[in-house]
């Protein structure tokens, strides 16, 4: 994955600049398409009890493994068919979006928070603080991330909280590296030199002067990280380490579908398509944000 680098943001501007940035955002089709899909998914997750045609946990054993509508033997009312216990696949998909989005938003925000804080410190103070943080990043990068996340969840115990913690603990390095480099570049800029000359304390300069200029690069990274978080949650559910098995998750549905893939392929295909579309949307949104907010790329 390529890192965003918005290197030359001029001093923070007023409402005019904000309006221009918003216009640039909406003019970028990747932002509107990717963002639109995510927005729709958020609504689906929020209103799942009203949207889902069935209770995702209700078993109709008489209707076990009926195929999706349009295939022979389909059952009206079960649009995407039913699983081996006769549970409605569409309803389980809809409820599964809840876990995926919760993990995406909370884990990505946490990772961004930790990484940004450490990145600001390393980039501003340099010296031994930078040395320590950069060594830590080196050590972190020497772990295979999937293995580390599985290991962490095994240590912390299965559950959504553990999945979120594992993702934040592993992926803060992505933010730290970018923010550190950005902070170093910004620290040389005239407006920061001026702020120092006035005598602002470092905490003020970091939070009020440098951070706002790092935010555009951060936003794109956060969106990409949300896509990664959705994948990691799916991987952990797939391995059987995420939430309890009675809560529907896309990864759990994929793992269940994998067992009977030759007989009931739709149990495998439906959550896979949902996962694919969601990850693609987060990725396109991140890519679009980077293009729209980075003046160097926009030229």
């Amino acid at each position: 994955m390529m890192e965003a680098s918005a290197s030359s943001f001029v001093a923070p501007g007023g409402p005019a600049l904000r309006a221009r940035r918003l216009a640039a955002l909406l003019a970028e089709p990747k932002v509107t398409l990717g963002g639109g899909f995510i927005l729709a998914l958020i609504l689906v997750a929020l209103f799942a009890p009203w949207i889902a045609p069935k209770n995702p946990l209700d078993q109709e054993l008489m209707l076990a493994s009926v195929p999706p509508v349009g295939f022979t033997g389909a059952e009206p009312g079960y649009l995407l068919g039913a699983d081996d216990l006769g549970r409605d696949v569409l309803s389980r998909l809809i409820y599964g979006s809840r876990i995926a989005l919760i993990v995406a938003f909370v884990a990505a925000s946490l990772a961004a928070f930790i990484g940004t804080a450490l990145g600001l410190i390393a980039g501003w103070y340099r010296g031994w603080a930078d040395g320590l943080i950069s060594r830590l990043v080196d050590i972190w990068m020497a772990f295979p991330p999937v293995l580390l996340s599985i290991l962490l969840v095994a240590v912390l115990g299965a559950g959504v909280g553990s999945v979120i913690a594992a993702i934040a603990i592993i992926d803060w390095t992505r933010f730290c590296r970018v923010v550190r480099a950005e902070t170093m570049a910004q620290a040389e800029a005239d407006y920061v030199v001026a702020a120092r000359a006035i005598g602002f304390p470092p905490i003020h300069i970091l939070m009020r002067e440098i951070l706002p200029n790092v935010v555009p690069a951060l936003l794109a990274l956060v969106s990409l990280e949300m896509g990664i978080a959705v994948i990691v949650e799916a991987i952990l559910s797939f391995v059987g380490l995420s939430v309890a098995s009675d809560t529907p998750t896309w990864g759990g549905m994929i793992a269940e579908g994998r067992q009977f893939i030759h007989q009931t392929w739709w149990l495998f295909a439906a959550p896979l398509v949902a996962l694919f579309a969601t990850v693609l949307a987060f990725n396109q949104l991140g890519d679009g944000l980077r293009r729209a907010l980075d003046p160097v790329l926009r030229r």
Partner: protein
Amino acid sequence: MIAIAVLRRLLVAAATLIGVAIVVFALLRVVPGDPVSMMISPGASPADIAALRAHYGLDGSLLSQFVVWVRYALRGDFGVSISLKRDVLALVGERLPATLELATAALAFAVIVGGAVAILGAMARRTWAEPVIDTVTGLLLAVPDFVWALALVLAFGVVWPLLPLTGRIDPSVASGMTTPFYLVESLLRLRFDVFFDLLRHLAMPTLALGLPLAAVIARVLKGALNEAMAQDYVLLARLKGMSELRLVLQEALRNAIGPTLALTGVQFTFLIGGTVIVERIFAYPGIGNMAIEAVINRDLPLIQGLVLAFAVIFILINIAVDLMVALFNPKLAHA
């Protein structure tokens, strides 16, 4: 000068490895459960348990436990796997070749396909083909190996069942192999039946791991080639009447390869990390699949050994990439 740089690099690598060892060690002490009680057979006497505890230094403080562990590790004794009751180093050694063959196959696929697409893309710039190439590489980049692996399972395992869904080799042809490097051995011994069976099993995991990397290479190399093609020396060569293909291959490629190489190296470590879940999906018997099994079984010594094995591979790749980038960039080598 270059010797000092290499030495510095090795020192950083050693420090990183020690850091990884500390993190793994600390993590595994937090795991609930006593490792020794899981290691012994049910009929062991208290004296046996105490002896085993003393052997692995588990009776001392956390720090002394770590020192004991490092001392044994330096001798090649990483303990005994709890679930498999065998020496950890031997187990890792048996499974590592399968992962190395898979990772190498995926890298080779990515370099060949990604490189070819980049060269085609550079030749087709500003034609209808360019946006097609950009869209396909963008799509391949957006979705990771886990999802591609599952999509391949659906495509070539179910819808169009061409390839075996699991395993590394058909057990009926595996018996003749004497080394764990099946792919290399079958080729050297001209056992093409075995070789093709291996390739059929390798195809899907290789594609899943190699496609995103191929897209990275295609995108970065194509960008670098396009940039090089706009330079004066290429214009001069073109005025001399050099063909477009020769322009790309002889003039532009030489200057575009450096940055691509550095990025490919970093991405290759991501690919190795991806083997963990991809091996799991295809039940491929490498160290990644074994690592997930070890975590599920809470097999602490085996987890420790496997994580260290991955860290060593990552660090070695990073050193190799740094050296190669220096070799390809004379300016850097003298600096």
